[in-house]
C-alpha cells in the first residue's frame, strides 16, 4: 500500500478537514453555493433543498454531538484472500479507495454521544468500493456490537452500501451470517440496535444487518431493497413501478419504521435513543 507506507495504522479524526475548497455546484438546481453554508445546513442545498452526498465523516458530523467521536475500530484493513483480479487487481482498488476517502476501510466505527446519550456508531462510506461489505466491514460491525454490549450503550449503524464485496468472494457472503449471528447477542443483552438506512441500502447489507434493527429509520430519498432494478430487469424483465425501492415503497410495505428528512435525523435519533436510555 504505497500511499500508506508510513501510516500503517490510521484512525478517523473528525476534527481534521480534508477538503478545503470554498464553493460547490448543486447538481439539482445548478447554483454555485458556499460550501461552509452547505455543511452547516446538513449538506442540504440552501437554494433548492436537494441533499448533497454525505461522506461517512460528514454523516457522522451531522448526527453526533460535536467533538465526541472517538475511533474504536480494529486496526485492520482489507486483505485479498482470493488474489482477485478483474479489470484491475483488488489490492489496487483498495489502495485507490483509501486514497480517495482517507479511510482504512468502507466503515467508520467509534463511540460518540447524540444529545448527550452515549452510543457506539458505525457509518458506511459509499465512496469506498460502493460501501460494500467485505471481511473488514463485517469484523468492524461485530466489534461495534460487542463494544456496545461491553459499554451497555445502544448501537447505531448508518448503512450506505450496494451489498457484498464481490472481490472477496465467499468471505463477503459469509459476512452476512457473521453480522447476523453477533446481532442476536444484542437482543440477549437488552442492547438497542438502531439501523439507519440511507442512499443506498441494498443487496447483502440490506439482507443482513441493516434489516435487523430494533428500529429502522430511513433517510428521506434512500433506496432500499435487495435486488436492484438492473438485476430484476436482466433476470425476469419485469415492469417495475416508479416508486420501486424508494423510501415510500419501503414504508408502505412494512420494511422500515419511519422516513426522516436529513434535517431532522439527529433530533429524531436523539428522541428515540432517549426512550431507550434507561435500558442500556
Amino acid at each position, binding site marked *: 500500500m504505497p500511499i500508506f507506507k508510513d501510516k500503517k495504522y490510521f484512525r478517523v479524526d473528525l476534527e481534521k478537514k480534508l477538503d478545503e475548497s470554498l464553493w460547490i455546484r448543486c447538481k439539482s438546481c445548478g447554483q454555485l453555493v458556499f460550501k461552509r453554508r452547505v455543511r452547516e445546513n446538513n449538506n442540504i442545498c440552501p437554494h433548492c433543498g436537494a441533499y448533497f452526498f454525505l461522506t461517512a465523516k460528514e454523516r457522522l458530523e451531522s448526527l453526533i454531538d460535536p467533538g465526541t467521536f472517538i475511533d474504536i475500530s480494529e486496526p485492520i484493513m482489507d486483505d485479498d484472500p482470493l488474489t482477485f483480479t478483474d*479489470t484491475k487487481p483488488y489490492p489496487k482498488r483498495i489502495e485507490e479507495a483509501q486514497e480517495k476517502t482517507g479511510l482504512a476501510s468502507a466503515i467508520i466505527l467509534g463511540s460518540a454521544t447524540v444529545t448527550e446519550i452515549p452510543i457506539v456508531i458505525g457509518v458506511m462510506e459509499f465512496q469506498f468500493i460502493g460501501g460494500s461489505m467485505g471481511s473488514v466491514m463485517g469484523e468492524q460491525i461485530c466489534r461495534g456490537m460487542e463494544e456496545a454490549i461491553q459499554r451497555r450503550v445502544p448501537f447505531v449503524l448508518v448503512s450506505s452500501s450496494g451489498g457484498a464485496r*464481490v472481490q472477496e468472494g*465467499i468471505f463477503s457472503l459469509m*459476512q452476512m451470517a*457473521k453480522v447476523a449471528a453477533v446481532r442476536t447477542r444484542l437482543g440477549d443483552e437488552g442492547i438497542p440496535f438502531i439501523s439507519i438506512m440511507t442512499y443506498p441500502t441494498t443487496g*447483502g447489507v440490506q439482507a443482513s444487518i441493516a434489516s435487523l434493527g430494533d428500529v429502522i429509520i430511513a433517510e428521506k430519498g434512500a433506496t432500499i*431493497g435487495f435486488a436492484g432494478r438492473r438485476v430484476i430487469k436482466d*433476470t425476469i424483465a419485469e415492469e417495475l413501478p416508479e416508486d420501486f425501492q424508494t423510501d415510500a415503497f419501503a414504508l408502505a410495505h412494512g420494511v422500515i419504521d419511519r422516513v426522516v428528512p436529513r434535517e431532522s435525523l439527529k433530533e429524531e435519533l436523539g428522541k428515540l435513543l432517549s426512550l431507550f436510555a434507561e435500558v442500556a
Partner: protein
Amino acid sequence: MSDEQTLDLLEAKIKELRELNETDGIDLSAAIAELEEKLAVLRREMYSNLSEWERVKLARHPERPYTLDYIGMVFTDFYELHGDRLSGDDPAMVTGLARLDGRTVAVIGEQKGRSVEENKQRNFGMPRPQGYRKARRIMRLAERFSFPVITLIDTPGAYPGLAAEENNVGEAIAVNLATMARLRTPIVATVIGEGGSGGAIAIGVADRILMLENAIYSVISPEGAAAILWKDKDKVKEAAAALSLTAPRLHELGVIDAIIPEPLGGAHRNPAQAAAALKDALIRNLNELVPIPTDELVVARYNRYRGIGRYRTLTER
C-alpha cells in the same frame, strides 16, 4: 462440440455396437473393449482437470439430481410440510420431516424444475420470501423437537422481482441468518448444485457445510460478476475462475468442511451413487453432532461465524 458432448457421443457409439453385437451376432467385443477403455481414459482426464467454468456447467446440468431426487434416495418417510402461515407456499423451497438412519430430521431444500412447466412452478429454484419464511417455520419446528436440520442448497439466488421486494425479501433472508446462527439443534447444510449468493446462505448457516464435488457456491454468479466487474458479459470463464467458487477451492479456503465425491462425470451420471455418498456424509456428520450438548453446539456454531473473514492487521505507527 463440448467435452461432455464428446463423451455422450462415445457412449452412444458403444451402446450401438453392443446392440449390433447382440442382435446380429457379429463379434464386436474387441472394438467395444477398445472404445470403452478410450472412454474411461477420456473421462478421467477430463474430470480430473475441470476448469471452474466447466464445474459451473456441471453444477447447473439439467439432468443433475435435484432436492426432491435426493430426498427420495437419501431419506425414508418424507412428509412434506407446506406454507409459511403468513401468506403463501413457495414450491421453490421444499420442506418437511423425514427419517434418516432411524432418526427424524427436518429437511429444507431448494427445488429446481426440469420441464418448462415445472420450472414455471418451481421458479427455476429461486425462492420467494414465502419460501424463506416457510423454511424458518420448519427450523423452529425442528428446534422445538430437537430434530436435526438438513438443508440442501441448489439455487441461482433469491427470486428477484417486484413481489419479492414487496414482501421484504431482505428481511426474510436476514432473519433466517440470525435464526440459524442460534438454532438449538444441529444443522448440516449441503450445496448439491448451485449455491447462489443470499438465496443460498439464507438456508446455509450450519454446524457443518458440505459440498458435492461439482457443486458451486458463490457470492455472485459468474455472469453477474462478468457484467459488473469486467463490464463484459463474455468474461464468464475469467469470472468463474476468479470467484473461487468450486468445492476444492472453498475447502482450501476453510469455508466448507468436506467435499462429497460424485460419480465420474458428475452426479447425473449415477444419481444413486451420488445420493449414497450424500447419505453417508449426512449420517456421519449427524453422528458427530447429535451427541454434542446443545449449549456447546450453539456456542461452537456462533464462534465459527464470529471468526469468519480474512483481513490484514495494521500495526501502530
